[in-house]
């Protein structure tokens, strides 16, 4: 079942690898290498913590491995199929815990700050925090779109395959998401964390 040692799958596209992966775990290993970071990022930004991100990412790949024999690429490429598994598991996770979709505030503010650490001002940090909080208030599918676009850096076509929509529909959804974010930002002039820290500043 195992591939010969040192077998190089790098030149093989996903469709061929899927066929090989039905009988060859090493081929599945290559598919795993191609997508583990993206799936992990996606799950992490939808759950808000590394512990659940690891657990759900593992489940995504275990489920993919179990069902790869029956997977047939009918207009849904392997990548989109994998993201759909991830999306379903994340949706179940939220349903089981009855939680709001959480975007990990500290991580991405920190990551953003790292990129401009030297010139960042308190004002721009506050702006970032407000932006993240506004994202958290968006409906599920808009958060999903932003994570797929900006975190996983997928094209509109790829996002359309995952969300089962046309490219045009994704563009419209993106436009509406930006408008909604702008409205959120103008309706909430101060961030939650700034409001929480206000009493401390008075002392």
């Amino acid at each position, binding site marked *: 079942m195992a591939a010969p040692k040192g077998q190089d799958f790098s030149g093989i596209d996903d469709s061929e690898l899927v066929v090989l992966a039905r009988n060859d775990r090493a081929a599945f290993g290559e598919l795993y290498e191609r997508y*583990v970071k993206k799936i992990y990022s996606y799950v992490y930004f939808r759950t808000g913590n590394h512990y659940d991100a690891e657990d759900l*990412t593992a489940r995504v*790949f275990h489920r993919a491995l179990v069902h790869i024999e029956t997977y047939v690429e009918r207009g849904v490429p392997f990548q989109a199929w994998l993201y759909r598994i991830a999306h379903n598991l994340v949706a179940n996770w939220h349903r089981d815990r009855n939680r709001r979709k959480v975007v990990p505030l500290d991580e991405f503010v920190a990551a953003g700050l790292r*990129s401009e650490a030297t010139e960042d001002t308190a004002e721009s940090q506050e702006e970032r925090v407000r932006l993240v909080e506004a994202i958290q208030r968006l409906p599920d599918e808009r958060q999903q779109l932003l994570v797929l676009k900006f*975190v996983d850096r997928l094209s509109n076509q790829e996002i359309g395959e995952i969300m089962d929509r046309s490219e045009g529909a994704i563009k419209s959804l993106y*436009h509406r998401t930006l408008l909604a*974010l*702008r409205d959120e930002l103008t309706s909430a002039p101060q961030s939650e964390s700034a409001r929480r820290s206000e009493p401390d500043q008075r002392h």
Partner: protein
Amino acid sequence: MVTHDGNENSATDWLRELLAAQAEALTGGSEHTDDKMSDRAKAFDDFDSPAFSFDHYRVASEQVPEARHLLHLASQLRDVLNPVDPSLEFSMRLKNELVGQAPVTLAVRWRKLPAHYRLAARLGGFTITAGITLLAVRRALNVVGMLHRRGRKAESGLSFKTAL
């Protein structure tokens, strides 16, 4: 909102196309390092300057402030939403599990179980835990009750002797 061609829908459509083009340039630019993509990304860097040609994207002049605002917002999103990598240890362990080089642990067996099996296992576990807890509580209450009765008995015996 009316554009130069008097069509309300097309005004939104052009803005939508501009935003989509910027997003593709912003997010594709980091992975596709070819010059063409990099030029596309650079083309959106100076949308704040008066020299930026909104005409090129057929955005009507009355839509330019809104377009600038949304382009700026998208740039902020790019700066704030960064990919997060899994730990190397986790990635290696999971790969070993998947390609069959790692011993199958209890956690792996659990993950592989179908959802209804996991639910049944959870219910079973809960029932057993609740049953054991109930038995333990009853036993504890019995012991407390017995001690309490002994105490009262001793107390009443003492008061009887004292009365005599």
